[in-house]
């Protein structure tokens, strides 16, 4: 599913916890159910904590990928209304 449509991009490079999650959560609130958010981040802990939190909120995590030694991409599909 490399050609998966991304509806919104969020760049939180430079952010640390918990603001990585705060900004990711707010971005998910602002898309529609079924839409996909792609987040790029460079805070290592967030690469595991943000996907985990998104699953807890009831959303799907479609992808977690380390794209270079310092950056990760996380794709989330909104599944439930906030």
């Amino acid at each position, binding site marked *: 599913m490399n050609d998966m449509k991304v509806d919104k991009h969020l760049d939180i490079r430079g952010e640390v916890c*918990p*603001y990585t*999650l*705060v*900004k990711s*959560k*707010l971005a998910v*609130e*602002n898309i529609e159910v079924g839409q996909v958010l792609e987040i790029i981040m460079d805070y290592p802990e967030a690469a595991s904590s943000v996907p985990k*939190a998104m699953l*807890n*909120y009831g959303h799907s995590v479609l992808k977690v990928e380390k794209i270079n030694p310092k950056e990760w991409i996380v794709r989330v599909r909104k599944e439930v209304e*906030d």
Partner: protein
Amino acid sequence: MEFTEEQLKRYSRHIILPEVGGKGQQKISNAKVLIVGAGGLGCPVGYYLAAAGVGTLALVDNDVVELSNLQRQIAHSVKTLGVNKADSAKQTFESLNPDVNVIAVKERINSKNILDLIKDYDIIVDGTDNFPTRYLINDACVMLKKPLVSGAILRFEGQVTTIIPGDGPCYRCLFEEPPPAGLVPSCQEAGVLGVLPGVIGALQATEVLKLILGKGKPLKGELLIYDALGVNFRKVRIPKNDDCPMCGKNPKIKELSDIPEQYCEL
């Protein structure tokens, strides 16, 4: 809502809660809450609501801060001795959170001014210390259909209930009339453990935030009683009284009545 970077930091622990989020935080900042009394209960209620970012917070009190208040009234300090309590608490809450518009109402609430004072607010908090005022606030909230979060304290015991007019009982469903003056001792006569209003006020603030967010179950139709010495929380059901003089089928009370002077206030 677009949050500033400062607001994202200040409210981060709210925003990441599924039950709050950015949308809930927006509801909190749009909310208008009026607290009657800036004393033992009003201080912690206002403190937590200001910290939470409630957009408009009105405090009604016409007393001045005295040294004997500082054992429990945590929004005041030695620097505000002699200052009106609503003004003193306003200074504290504004320095805690400049997002909050704190309105100090330096009046004693009575049957003439109460409807006008509460009409523009979403939720009313009773932090008063005497029965006539408690009943007056109840009656005015029933008349204007304003949700009311009521708290009371004495010695080592406190109680909380939430009144949603039209959806559950009011204070007069529990006791139709206030007890005669002198029957129930005041805190001035009987004392109160300083931390007790903190416990009860925190519970009231929690109820207010739940009402704003529309989350959880309000404490309506029940009186929560806290006994600090025995460490007991118990809930007593308050049935809605069809014969209630205020909110029953044929209400007898059509207008608000004034507070007898002999009731003391702390």
